[in-house]
């Protein structure tokens, strides 16, 4: 996708707001870009978040008519959008994100998409994570390829998937660790030693086990660091504690789950020699029916996300000023509400970049509008910014990945998606 010509008055680009001023007082700048100290957390929202609900374009004349009862009202009334600027707001469930936006720590992207243009979740997530232009073109993920190009060289354990297994975005040649917030207490050390011996003839099992043992140590250190018990004692959690509450349309237990995941990510990153990059996943955004508006199923989800971001900021504590949190989803959803008070798979959506290292307080949107003629295929928000322009900017300006490698190995065929400038504090 080629960047559009930006001079048209209808469009808004790098729409700065007055909120920027507030950030000048913060000491964040002291911490930014001290070489390898930058921290990156990528949050993948699986199932396609409705960007028109999360970042309501309340001033667009067609928004309320299309999104109908799912639309978020313009600021000023109860349960309305939290204002970002004169066009866009945030869903009222995203209070923490809004607070950080006002503090100049959040960039909001609207009308973005990966290069993928069909509407399959699974291929969409594949492209989001493989960094290519089509699904299944690669067995590794762009973030793993980026690890290989970090300026300080790479070693095992620089990145963690905060889950039992490693998602595609982090798979590849560079070994990464995985650690879920579920506790693994009391595995007998003698058993582990004997297993290590048993695995000595099997490289694959051998490598996994030593990673696992190392990661347990990191997690222990991280949780000891603030004297906080990270995990409930074994068996304290009833087996079905996370069983769904029945009156919502999407996976209801997870809104709280993701905070636990965020806490684990922070604990690992805080530990001595801990990872600098973490990936968190949250599913349940596929709101085909009974999505709700300011309240309801999606609102609960967003509350969970907001809480997780707050947890991350609190728990990272002194690391927050050098942190960027990238929140992405595979695509947006239809501009119009469907027949079952939900939305179907779409194209253009939203993304967030939050953190003390972020030069935020701005909405970045080349807004195409929601007029019928402006919609893609007569149904979706037309994307005007390639997500890879954001990814490349973060890797370049935050993690200091060499720009040539960025344009060739990490995101091949991405010359049309130039990195955005000025996303991070200089």
């Amino acid at each position: 996708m080629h960047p559009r010509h930006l001079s048209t008055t209808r469009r808004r680009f790098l729409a700065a707001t007055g909120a920027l001023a507030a950030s000048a007082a913060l000491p964040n700048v002291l911490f930014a870009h001290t070489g390898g100290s930058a921290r990156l957390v990528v949050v993948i929202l699986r199932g396609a978040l409705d960007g028109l609900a999360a970042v309501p374009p309340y001033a667009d004349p067609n928004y309320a008519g299309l999104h109908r009862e799912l639309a978020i009202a313009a600021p000023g009334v109860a349960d309305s959008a939290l204002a970002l600027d004169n066009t866009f707001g945030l869903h009222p469930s995203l209070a923490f994100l809004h607070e950080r936006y006002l503090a100049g720590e959040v960039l909001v992207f609207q009308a973005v998409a990966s290069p993928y243009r069909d509407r399959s979740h699974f291929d969409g997530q594949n492209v989001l994570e493989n960094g290519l232009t089509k699904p299944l073109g690669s067995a590794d993920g762009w973030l793993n390829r980026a690890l290989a190009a970090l300026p300080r060289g790479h070693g095992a354990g620089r990145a963690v998937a905060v889950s039992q297994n490693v998602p595609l975005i982090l798979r590849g040649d560079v070994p990464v660790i995985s650690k879920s917030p579920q506790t693994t207490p009391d595995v007998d050390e003698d058993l582990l030693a004997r297993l290590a011996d048993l695995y000595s003839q099997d490289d694959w099992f051998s490598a996994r086990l030593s990673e696992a043992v190392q990661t347990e140590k990191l997690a222990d250190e991280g949780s000891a660091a603030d004297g906080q018990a990270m995990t409930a004692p074994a068996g304290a959690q009833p087996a079905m504690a996370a069983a769904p509450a029945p009156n919502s349309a999407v996976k209801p237990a997870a809104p709280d789950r993701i905070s636990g995941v965020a806490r684990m990510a922070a604990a690992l990153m805080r530990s001595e020699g801990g990872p600098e990059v973490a990936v968190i996943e949250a599913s349940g955004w596929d709101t085909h029916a009974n999505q709700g508006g300011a309240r309801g199923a999606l609102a609960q989800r967003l509350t969970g996300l907001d809480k997780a971001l707050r947890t991350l900021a609190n728990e990272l504590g002194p690391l927050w000023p050098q942190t960027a949190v990238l929140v992405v989803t595979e695509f947006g959803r239809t501009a119009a509400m469907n027949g079952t008070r939900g939305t179907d798979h779409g194209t253009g959506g939203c993304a967030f970049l939050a953190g003390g290292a972020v030069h935020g307080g701005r909405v970045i949107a080349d807004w195409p509008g929601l007029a019928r003629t402006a919609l893609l295929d007569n149904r979706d928000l037309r994307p005007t910014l390639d997500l890879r322009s954001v990814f490349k900017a973060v890797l370049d300006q935050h993690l200091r990945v060499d720009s040539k490698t960025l344009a060739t190995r990490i995101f091949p065929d991405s010359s049309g998606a130039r990195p955005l400038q000025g996303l991070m504090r200089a």
Partner: protein
Amino acid sequence: MVQTEIAVLRFGLGARPGDLAAAAGDPRGWLMAQIKGALALAGNTPLAPSDQIFTELLAARDEFREMKRTAAARSSTDPKTPAAPAVNPLRDAYLPHYRAQVLARAQSAALTTRPFAERLVHFWTNHFAVSADKAAVFGVAGTLENEAIRPHVDGRFVDLLTAVEQHPAMIAFLDNQYSVGKDSELAQLAARRAGGHPFGRPRTDVQDKPKREFGINENLAREILELHTLGVNGGYSQNDVTTFAQIITGWSIGGGKGRLTGGIPGRFYFRDNLHEPGAKTFLGKTYYEGGQRQGEAVLADLARHPATARFVATKLVRHFVADDPPAAAVDRVARAFLKTGGDLPSVYAALVEAPEAWDADMRKFKTPEDFVFSTLRALNVSPGQPEEVVRSFDLLGQRQYTPGSPAGWPDTAKSWDGSDALMHRVLWASRIAGRYERGIDPVDLAASSLGAYVRPGTVTALRRASSSTQALALLLMSPEFQRR
């Protein structure tokens, strides 16, 4: 030769004591004998049918609404009273059913004498995935497997497909029950009665609220094409998705109130008044109006489409042979599918005949499901209580019937081989070992569960272990037990 072990461990669900001996004479014959006849659950846990569960759910939902109203009213007069009810009758209604289904599934996997057929049932359940983490599906997720898949596992693909897409759990999971054609009787009626609500909602709240607009929900149509039949590269367009969604408007669930009464509560029901009328062109072919049969005609064509044959064959070979499915085996299975019009026993036979499936290397890393079921079989135990099964799968990261997405659980090692996942397996194996070590000789168990695949190094480690509990944990965590 390890043909016997391959039949029992790779095609089946792992060896119970005696399984290897039973299959030894004729491993292929042992497999082929299993794929004749529908497959009932082994075990004795009583299960309620989906219509009963749905009916209970509807009653519980009404009760819950009433409770919420009462609680809210009380809280408005007395602010100290919580605004939400303390108990949740919906969950109470569903939870025992979910648990019973999970228990019954594990018992059947542990006890069945047709483990190849049982694995095929699991394969189809994952192919036609519904997820219990959607509230409406929580209590009925297992009924799709037991009511739509088990009876058709040995039949024709078209019958399996139709049974699945018309099962209320699938309809509810992919939101088709209220998908309404724009020109359907119901939508027309609503248009005429401005402000009136055809679902029977009281008309007191009409004022300036936007009128409910009826339309399709394309979720089920898209996933049938992408995940159940043609596959994502199967050659359909967005237009085909939308048209197919119109074709299956009206595919719904019986029961309900107001204008949605009709049908047997909790069973598949075609609601004529929601159906988008008229002939429709899908994938270049015109389907004439036929109500419910219009959609069935599309399914029949999809079920014998070459893209479907290839998509299903690829998934079968990936499941039974290797993460990266060998092309020759895929071709063989796809050819059998096409040639027989999707006769499933012929498709399975082609899979069994594929030489690639008999490669001695164990190329599949067990999923948590494989690991748990093969452990139960190795130990020759069947779980008696749902808690132990539910907790096991929670711990191992594959909570039963909750793949989370309609694509089902991933079927490649990369999705299951995280270091943290391995640590969870170690933890589970040591707990299980602690529970079941009594009366077990781990070295004998290695032989009865793995046959020729046991490595000498493992036997040495078992002999040197500090306790039989530790030895059993080591066996379960040995590379040869973790693969199939």
